[in-house]
């Protein structure tokens, strides 16, 4: 099983890299045939990632979302599938290029993490694990889409304001489309994240007997949650949109990454609980 898992992992890296390269060729040369190939490769990568996570599940005996390595792959997986499901409804010019770049980067980062299996203490082995961690990471998937859209929005907005129309300008979708993407992804992301936090709190209660343990992961999660709440609230109440919305979602995503890397890596996984 370990062998199969390793082979799958290598293939995923290769396929995702090729997909990303294909998108980049489309981006620079506007070759639609290449983009078609890149799309198929990304779908293949998504399926392979799913298979890999299944083998890993068999390997570690629980949902493979506890070590930094697993978290990164899970993150890439959720971003991939968030994009694929999204793509089914929306089509945004060159969005795939940025997203595939992010997915590939996440996978490359996972290369540098230890693939060692973390044996969970019995009290952490619960049904809450897949629910809490899975939903949380899946919300990150949508937030990474919002991040990609946000970066594109900021570039385009800057070009429009400064009236400098370079190479990137014609390759970006409209501001409105990007802003709608932000709206959808933030809303879905926030919803999932809220569920993730609630389940996390319930799990804490189950394991430790109280709802707040005071870990840095918890603190940062609350910060992110309030940041998202603020954005969703502002958008729906006063029509917050545009540059500020894009900027804030980019910052929020960076904080999420830092939380994930910083807190998870430093503590060696599982939020440092019980280890």
């Amino acid at each position, binding site marked *: 099983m370990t062998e199969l898992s390793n082979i799958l992992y290598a293939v995923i890296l290769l396929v995702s890299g090729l997909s990303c390269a294909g998108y980049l060729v489309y981006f620079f040369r506007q070759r639609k045939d290449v983009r078609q190939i890149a799309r198929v490769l990304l779908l293949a990568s998504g399926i392979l990632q799913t298979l890999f996570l299944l083998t890993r599940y068999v390997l570690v005996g629980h949902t493979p979302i506890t070590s930094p390595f697993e978290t990164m792959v899970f993150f890439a997986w959720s971003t991939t599938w968030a994009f694929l499901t999204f793509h089914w409804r929306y089509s945004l010019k060159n969005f795939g290029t940025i997203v595939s770049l992010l997915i590939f980067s996440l996978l490359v980062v996972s290369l540098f993490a230890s693939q060692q299996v973390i044996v969970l203490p019995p009290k952490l082995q619960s049904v809450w694990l897949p629910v809490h961690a899975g939903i949380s990471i899946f919300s990150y998937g949508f937030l990474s889409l919002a991040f990609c859209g946000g970066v594109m929005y900021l570039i385009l907005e800057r070009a*429009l304001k400064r009236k400098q129309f370079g190479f990137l300008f014609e390759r970006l979708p*409209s501001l*409105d489309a990007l802003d709608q993407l932000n709206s959808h992804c933030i809303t879905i992301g926030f919803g999932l994240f809220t569920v993730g936090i609630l389940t996390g709190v319930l799990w804490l209660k189950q394991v430790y007997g109280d709802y707040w343990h005071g870990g840095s992961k918890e603190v940062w999660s609350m910060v992110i949650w309030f940041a998202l709440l603020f954005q969703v609230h502002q958008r729906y109440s*006063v*029509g917050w949109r545009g540059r*500020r919305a894009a900027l804030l979602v980019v910052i929020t995503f960076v904080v999420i990454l830092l939380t994930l890397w910083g807190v998870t890596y430093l503590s060696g996984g599982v939020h440092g609980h019980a280890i």
Partner: protein
Amino acid sequence: MQSEQILLLGVNHKTTPVEIREKIALSGGYDQYLAALNKIEHIQEHYLLSTCNRVELLVVADAGADVRDHLIRFLFGNEVPLEKADEYLYILEGREAVHHLFTVAGSLDSMVVGEAQILGQLKEAYRHAAEQHSTGALLNKMLHKSFTVAKRVRTETGIGSSAVSISYAAVQLAKKIFGDLRQKKVLLIGAGEMAELAAEHLLGNGVRAVSVANRTLARAMRLAERFDGQAISMEELPEHLEETDIIISSTGAEELIIHKSDVQAVMRKRRNRPLFLIDIAVPRDLDPRLNDLDNVYLYDIDDLSSVVEINREGRGREAIKARRIVDEETLKFEHYIETLEVKPTIVELRKRIREMAEGELAKSRHRLGELTGEQEDALEAMLHAIAAKILHHPMEYLKSSRCTGHKKIKERVNTVCEIFGLPEGRTEKQDNETNE
């Protein structure tokens, strides 16, 4: 020029303020006006052009007849006193009239140099004139030539692309901001060819509604009708800021029409929906600081030109090229008219020489006895060669007079007629076979 004179009278956006132009502008189509012109004595051919920026009359009148007063009266009606009319009016004659027509056709006299609408308007005006049979040989030729000029200017210079691409750029930018234009509302403040062109392009791209605000409500209404939209007064502007998505401003106002604070005040009510502002006016109508506001994108005419990467310098160069084409074609047309003067003499001369040669051959033929077909051909060829040689110099003499002016032509024609004993006065009459 000899038996007739070409006259062009008109007012345009450069000479005449819009208030006066509005009074002169012909309402209700061309036909009744063309019919009225037809009744004026001594006018052989006439043609009429009326657009929002110009009203021009082009006539071919009998030489020597003074029809100007009649025409001025016709143009200004009773709305404007005649002595005031002189201030606005330009009257061009002969070569200048042709040159002006070609300049207009080439869109070099337009408010937005290079815009394409004018050719359509010219053709439309010509269609009416042709239907009423008010144009004849000379004007037909002249107008057709003007279409050629327009075509040449369009294809040989980049001048047309700048105007069209500016409004095209406006549409591209709007799409970049809004994505889908279908639910968007456009507001025109003031009117001008450029603004109308841009509005038309936007409508062509599916915007939902076009409203028009203007200092004179009547004009706003007329324009709104064209776009099937709504006319509003300038006082209503602030309210409309709230629901409009794209504003194209092109008033002649000296001061700013929309200030930063005006828009800032409505952005919250707009729920920060983006606002795309296009300022075509010089001096500007819209506060340049508007661009600092979030979700507001302000472009002036220079910004738009920079979008299409056509700088002023480039446009200037193209205009020079276009003017050269107009000059060229004017000169050609002048030659054409002058050819009309010498052509009857040339035809007559040719005929005379041919008759002589053939007459002599007929007289001598029976003395030559039996000839083979080959000999017969040789004889014929010889006669033709002699005739051609005799004709060569007088023809050159006449043709080369084309550039020397009307008086000189007349002299030369007379000389040739005297030497060859041609009937005089033939040149006084326009020959119909020269009409194309």
